[in-house]
């Protein structure tokens, strides 16, 4: 099962992972990563801008890549867009597999790609001022782990 979502409202990770897990009887395990908006320093809010024709298609393609690369029963990729506060979930990736290593590696793979080359533009508000965030070189280094 492939389930890819852009969410414009706050979400509860458990309400996504529970049904996803139940949809895969016979699985060996489910690995899930949930990222939250970090309240680094004085960040008051984060806004994630997307362009649906690219952003959702790109996430769908990433899910397909993970399904092709690892032995999975299913993958769920959900990403928030819009304005968020520190502490809110921003991203969730779950992978169900018969063997744990596939599930764990698929989550690692999908997160590295989401963090670096997904079609999102981000800005932070500090002291009332919005500022756009540039790409981070570390994120591109993470991607190179998967190019072999």
């Amino acid at each position, binding site marked *: 099962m492939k389930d890819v979502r852009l969410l414009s409202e706050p979400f509860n990770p458990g309400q996504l992972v529970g049904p996803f897990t139940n949809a895969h009887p016979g699985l060996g395990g489910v690995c899930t990563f949930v990222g939250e908006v970090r309240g680094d320093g004085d960040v008051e809010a984060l806004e994630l801008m997307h362009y649906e024709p*690219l952003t959702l298609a790109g996430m769908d393609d990433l899910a397909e890549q993970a399904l092709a690369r690892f032995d999975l029963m299913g993958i769920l990729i959900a990403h928030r867009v819009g304005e968020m506060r520190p502490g809110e979930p921003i991203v969730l990736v779950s992978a169900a597999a018969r063997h744990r290593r596939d599930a764990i590696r698929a989550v690692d793979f999908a997160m590295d790609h989401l963090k*670096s080359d*997904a079609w999102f533009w981000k800005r932070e508000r500090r002291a009332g001022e919005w500022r*756009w*965030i540039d*790409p981070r070189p570390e994120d591109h280094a993470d991607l190179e782990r998967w190019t072999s």
Partner: protein
Amino acid sequence: MAVRLVFLGKLADLAGASERELAAPIDWPALVEALQGELGEWLAGDKLKLAVNGAVLADKRALQARDGDEVALLPPVSGG
């Protein structure tokens, strides 16, 4: 008889709006002509990509947009 421009990320700030309409058709010289100042500098630079109706152009200078097309101006992503 229009092409819709969509500005992503900081380009929306520079454009003062997330969308703008231009009279169709629009090719590369027409787009350069239409976008001045900092937006024009972004357009000329290496980092900006263009997508037409959700398909990223391998060579943005080959842009050909007709009535009803949507042209997205894409600065580098910050990732999720």
